[in-house]
């Protein structure tokens, strides 16, 4: 009941306003979705008072566990909180539109300049930077993804399958099924988490494993 009380307290915000807020966020969101939190906090918590920081953190953790982009998913959760399904769609369109428009604009001149040797040289250095970015992303995801024997096993299996050029779809789907299988095989083990406590729990488990 308390959740219903809360929703009635929320200030109504027009869909256009919601779209505009997220469009602005999308415009300043550089380098992926992880940077969205501070912007969401200032716009949705402090200015519009639609949700609390705790809720946004919850949304953020959930967004990483479900298909789709983290930034898109967080925006949808917040938009849903404000105006239901229509709000979610307004928010996600707003946050994605700048990304779409900028690539369409850039693409036309990118194909012209890539033939210059200096541009090719720049891109070869960029390759290395991209490797580092991927490596850093793995570090960030590692704590709440690979933290006990079972997840390590899945990790090793998935790496070998990917190296053997197994379709990523098959890898992802069978990994999900394995997770479900573990639940039926060892029903007494505590359910692995999928919320804000995720990283904390995983660290605890890591320590247990070390000991």
């Amino acid at each position, binding site marked *: 009941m308390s959740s219903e009380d809360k929703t009635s307290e929320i200030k109504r915000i027009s869909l256009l306003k919601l779209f505009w807020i997220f469009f602005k966020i999308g415009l300043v969101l550089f*380098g992926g979705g992880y940077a969205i939190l501070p912007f969401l906090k200032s716009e949705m918590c402090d200015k519009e008072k639609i949700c609390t920081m705790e809720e946004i953190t919850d949304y953020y953790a959930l967004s990483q566990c479900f298909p789709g982009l983290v930034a898109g998913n967080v925006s*949808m959760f917040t938009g849903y909180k404000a105006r239901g399904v229509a709000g979610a769609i307004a928010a996600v369109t707003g946050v994605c539109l700048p990304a779409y428009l900028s690539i369409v604009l850039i693409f036309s001149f990118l194909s012209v300049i890539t033939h210059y040797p200096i541009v090719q040289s720049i*891109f070869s250095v960029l390759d290395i930077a991209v490797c*580092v970015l991927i490596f850093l992303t793995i570090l960030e995801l590692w704590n709440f993804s690979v933290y006990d024997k079972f997840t390590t096993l899945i990790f090793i299996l998935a790496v070998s399958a990917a190296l053997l050029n197994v379709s990523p779809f098959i890898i992802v789907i069978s990994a999900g099924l394995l997770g*479900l299988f573990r639940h039926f095989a060892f029903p007494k083990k505590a359910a692995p988490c999928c919320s804000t406590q995720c990283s904390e729990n995983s660290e605890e488990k890591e320590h247990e494993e070390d000991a």
Partner: protein
Amino acid sequence: MHNILLLAFEYMKIGAVAIGGGYTVIPFLYYLVEKYNWFNVSEITQMIAVSNLTPGPIGINMATFVGVKVGGALGSLFTTIAFMIPSVIIICCLAKFLKKNKENKYINHVMYGLRPAAVALIGVAGLKIMNTTFFHFEKFKTSHNFFDIISLKAFILLAVFTLIGLKLKKNPMILIVMAIVLGCFIRI
């Protein structure tokens, strides 16, 4: 038109299984390269780099990039929308569901299995990029100089970028800009 619809369908599938943000899409891009030959491997790293430089979520940047590449303006529109449809449906249902009950153990278990696989896929995608930039087997074949296989410059840059990246967590923008500046002077 046939290509565009096919790409949109493939991207919708990717949107339904890519968990954990834009970088999870990368292994699927390799899958697309192998299956359809619409673009090549070096263009994937180009896409990632450009996506890091442009505003907005990286996954959308890449979807639009692939879309323009394969089917022009119409292709990009179809691809981007197709990419978002599964997550829009899933998140809307989930938000509705979470309003009623907080957690579900089945979902938790599926996600528990999925996350390590997603990390593994991203890691292998990184290895594939390393394979093309750090090891030059073609050069070795022509020169027969053993030291030509491994690009030492690339490894030094890798170490430098990693150190900087670890310092400036969550700001990939700076790393990309630095790589562009260095790329003007260094030839690998």
